[in-house]
């Protein structure tokens, strides 16, 4: 296991480096640059553009820029945002918590609810409950997150006035302590609800399909013949066997939680990573974009290793050597 971990960490690191280099070229080769945006649309002076370019090192050949970037990275510095003129790490840290509040909460909720409903539907295949749940899952699965978010805003904010339409806190009130927490919770309901609803069908369908398979396994007949309670067989044996694909799916989802969910964050004006990335793309903020992509790729690399480890614990047939 130790050797395997070492090998996986090494390939993970290599992946991150390849992604970093590829991203660097892609971002810099894309049309437009941050200096043009900084200089403004009206009457930009060529002199200003040249000076700013030199200041950020953008006048140098691209491989030199890459080398400079890697050197600062090795010092543990993600660089400075060109547009916002602040350290990239600071910008990311500000948004990370907000995004995790949204994506992590909804990822866990979707896992629990989706799996529970999948189990409920599997207990009686073809029953009314199964049919209704499958239909709902089908509808939710085909629903874009931003549209669902808008509909929820229309219904619960505009019409019923139960929840705020957008933001993370009430900007007019400056709450502290419990009141602040409650305020954030109130603002969380709709965006978390949206992300949870569109996340549920995946887990629902995986659980259902996996259980349909597992319930036909031969050990069911043996345990039944041995007089074991059907409930016990289901709880102990079927569940453990059926949950394996869910572990993979959930692990992959967790790898991306720090990237946020751009469309839903935009609809709900949530100050998270997704929106940070969107604005960085729009303004060609090279260092910020690189920083966010780097953090995401590291997260994916680490989570894939964690998923593999957890999978080996859950399924004894998988052993790494």
């Amino acid at each position, binding site marked *: 296991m130790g050797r395997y971990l070492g090998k996986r960490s090494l390939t993970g690191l290599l992946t991150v480096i390849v992604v970093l280099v590829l991203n660097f070229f892609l971002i810099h080769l894309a049309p437009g640059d941050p200096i043009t945006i900084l200089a403004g649309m009206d009457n930009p002076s060529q002199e200003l553009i040249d000076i700013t370019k030199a200041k950020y090192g953008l006048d140098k050949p691209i491989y030199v820029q890459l080398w400079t970037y890697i050197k600062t990275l090795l010092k543990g510095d993600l660089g400075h945002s060109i547009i916002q003129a602040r350290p990239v790490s600071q910008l990311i840290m500000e948004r990370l918590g907000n995004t995790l509040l949204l994506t992590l909460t909804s990822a866990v909720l979707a896992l629990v609810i989706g799996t529970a409903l999948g189990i409920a539907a599997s207990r009686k295949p073809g029953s009314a409950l199964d049919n209704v749940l499958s239909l709902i899952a089908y509808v939710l699965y085909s629903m874009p997150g931003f549209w669902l978010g808008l509909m929820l805003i229309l219904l619960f904010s505009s019409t019923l006035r139960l929840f705020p339409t957008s933001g993370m806190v009430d900007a007019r009130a400056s709450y502290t302590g419990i009141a602040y927490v409650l305020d954030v919770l109130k603002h969380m309901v709709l965006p978390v609800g949206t992300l949870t609803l569109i996340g549920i069908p995946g887990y629902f369908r995986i659980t259902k399909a996996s259980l349909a398979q597992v319930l036909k*396994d*031969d*050990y069911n*007949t*043996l*345990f*039944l*013949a*041995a*007089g*074991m*309670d059907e409930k*016990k067989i289901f709880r*102990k*044996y079927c569940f*453990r*066997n059926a949950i*394996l694909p869910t572990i993979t799916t959930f692990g992959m989802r967790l790898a991306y939680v720090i990237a946020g969910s751009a469309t839903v964050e935009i609809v709900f004006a949530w100050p998270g990573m997704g929106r940070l990335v969107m604005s960085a793309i729009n303004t060609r903020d090279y260092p910020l974009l690189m920083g966010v992509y780097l953090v995401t790729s590291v997260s994916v690399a680490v989570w894939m290793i964690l998923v593999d480890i957890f999978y080996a614990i*859950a*399924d*004894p*047939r998988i052993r790494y050597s």
Partner: protein
Amino acid sequence: MGEKQNLLSLEDVCIGYETPTGTVRAVVNATLSLSAGDTLGIVGESGSGKSTLAHGILRLLPKTAVVTGRMMFQDVDLLRCDAKTLKDLRWKDIAVVFQKSMNSLSPVHKVGEQIVDIYRVHVPQATKEEVYDRMRHLLSVVNLPDRVLDLYPHQLSGGMLQRISISLSLIHQPKLVIFDEATTALDVVTQGQVLSEIRRLQSEMHVTSILITHDVSVVAETCRRVAVMYAGHLMEVGPVDQVLVSPRHPYTQGLLASFPSLSGARRRLRGIPGTLPDLKAEPKGCVFAPRCPKAFDRCHESMPPAVDTGTGCTVKCHLEGSER
């Protein structure tokens, strides 16, 4: 032979599977009895209803199956007893060794853990140590080391898993063990070993057993009595040394001619031309008539009843008791 108390007796058992296009008649009017200490083999081709009959005895059939008739296990009617009685009976009195032993344990739980769970169904307060002690003995009977208990099923070979299944079936000292194609998936060498272990169980531990197989030689090696099944019907039932030596039914004759004999002259294997009939259709005459080399007019008109030949055999054939 008939004086002994019957352990299991089936009377006119019919098992049908309901499908949208009609009922599949998997077992038709099966009448059979088994006395304590007896060993019965049920042979037949794939799809002849042998496994359905075995699963029917433990009420393990899917909900689409309709079972009629009477199945008496000692004084319990297996078809009509309540869930509690059935649950108490399962494994404690009747145990099964299934065909696909490689898959008959959960792949993500240790063998020992699953066996402890099965043991605790009837002895809830049993400790792991007690179960392991009991298993150690049973595993030694089938020539397995007890370390298999701490392994996962995928770490064991098919033959080892089959042996585990056999020792697991004996854990509560059941009165009846059904071996459902228990050696079919094994290679001949392993099959030979497992069969000799089954034979030992029968003689040393006096296990009453039903052995279901499509291999006549397996029955010849391990059973005292045999039932030959075709298209859901028990065509010929009787002592092995009669049925397999001088078969009365044309189907049994055909089945025996399909197997090579190790001793004696080499002869052409004959096989039986044709295939199993459609089990959904209600046959007009004898189910075997379309393939029977000796079929005559009456065979195409009605299914023959089971006739006692007076030598301990029952045969379903119009040739019996008529112009033989």
